[in-house]
């Protein structure tokens, strides 16, 4: 299991209800169910991945988060997880509103567009950055709304979203983001993970 999922699973307390939005092949869900006795649900748009989840006995429904989140009642999950997908939505702010409505707490991770390698790539090469976390060309990328850790910080402030915890990942190393170091972390982190409500 990738480091990001380890970090997310450590945030999630045992025996809680979790909705994994864009759950993929259910790796995180399976871990949470087996090791932390979490009551998990998943939402995934790709048929083949949904079938994999169902065969693992995971309750996953096929569907697009931009349409399907409406059906879940208010605060019906302790945690809603959205891993590296926010930037791929047509309306990320509306999806985020839905996540905050459904979950008592929401865990969002974003690939950081403020990462120094990305900045240098654009600055010196003059072409759209391609990195380990963002491996696409400009013409085939699913990422419509890239943002940086700082952007996300500012967004939460503007929308009055409370950040309970914010962490960042660089070279498999995890550290905390604070108001003081955000400028620095925005340059040196590949991934931001936020616990918000």
């Amino acid at each position, binding site marked *: 299991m990738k480091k990001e999922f380890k970090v997310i699973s450590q945030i999630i307390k045992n025996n809680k209800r979790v909705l994994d939005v864009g759950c993929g092949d259910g790796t995180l869900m399976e871990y949470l169910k087996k090791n932390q006795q979490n009551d998990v649900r998943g939402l995934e748009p790709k048929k083949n991945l949904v079938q994999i989840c169902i065969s693992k006995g995971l309750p*996953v429904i096929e569907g697009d988060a931009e349409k399907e989140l409406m059906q879940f009642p208010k605060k019906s999950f302790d945690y809603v997880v959205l891993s590296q997908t926010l930037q791929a939505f047509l309306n990320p702010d509306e999806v985020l509103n839905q996540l905050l409505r459904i979950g008592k707490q929401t865990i969002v991770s974003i690939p950081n567009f403020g990462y120094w390698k990305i900045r240098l790539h654009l600055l010196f090469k003059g072409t759209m950055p391609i990195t380990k976390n963002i491996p696409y060309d400009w013409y085939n990328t699913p990422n419509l709304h890239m943002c940086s850790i700082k952007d996300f910080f500012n967004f939460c402030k503007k929308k009055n979203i409370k950040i309970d915890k914010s962490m960042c990942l660089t070279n498999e190393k995890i550290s905390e983001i604070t108001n003081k170091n955000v400028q620095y972390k925005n340059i040196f982190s590949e991934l931001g993970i936020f616990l918000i409500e």
Partner: protein
Amino acid sequence: MNNKTKNLKKLVIDQTLLLDCGKTIKNFPIAYETYGVLNKNKSNGILVFHALTGDQFVTGINPITKREGWWTYAVGPEKAIDTKKYFVICANVLGGCMGSFGPKEINPETNKIFSTTFPVITIKDIVKAQKFILDHLGIKKLLAVAGGSMGGMQVLQFVSLYPNMAHSAIPIACSASHSAQNIALNELGRQAIMADPNWKKENATPDKGLAVARMAAHITYLSKQGLQEKFGRKLQDKGSLKFSFDADFQIESYLRYQGSNFVDRFDANSYLYITRAMDYFDLEKQFDGNLSNAFKETKSKFCIISFSSDWLYPTSENKEIVIALNACGANVGFVEINSDKGHDSFLLNVPEFLKTLKEFLNSTYDEINNEKRI
């Protein structure tokens, strides 16, 4: 009692069943079949519900029609519903014509065939009648309830009536309430039967009407694309059009065959009664307009499956069930399987579907057995 079905396995239910229409029935037979072996703690039972024209003979050769069972692709040794592992039970529905109490049976009060004097039945009545079989077999909790089309409706009705009787529920290609289009298509079939001069005549059967009903229904079970690919405008005999009303096109001949085949094995009045039961099915209405309430009590794990080319019970209607389940926090998985075989996909060899069904059951089975070990 009907001669052909006289020797089939039956349970005569000696209790009184109050039907939705207000009438009561008692001492009535429900014909059923089982496959596989029920384990010691009676925990490997799967109750399979058949669709409109199905019967209790799920797999293997049907002793009456001599044809393969209707779900042979899915049920059998090492198949998705593995009869080496599970104990499969299927009953002929109340109102049916394969040995269960239906319009073809003799009314003991009048000594005449019930025909249209049989009480109008509902999906709820049909499900309640099958519960007696489980009691008889001593099964307190099933591993799964499963069925497609009208079988799926019975799955939904079952879990809402008996929320603690199934570990998992697999409603396939179905709906929680029959749409106007569904009712319209059923009415078309009923009118075809009732327009046949032989309908309600003694010593005659409305074969023409029933065949037309089946032909019309059969079209709804297939997709436009599937029909086009299989038949296109292919002619029955090579050469040119005959300039007559004979079956020029292969599709015509195919439908006529489907129709004439059907009358040999099905009772026209059963067709009327069962389609009526489907039309009356409205689980949302049963629970005061809130479908979620139907599933509030249930602990069952749901796996809902629809098919991309099914226009009779389209994905959108299956999804309404998913939405209702999610709204009450139920344990639900849902997938739409890509297939060009239309509504009939659930009966056919659609590998992605069969694989999903098999693996979902496996995981449910393993979960239950692991729980017990702990």
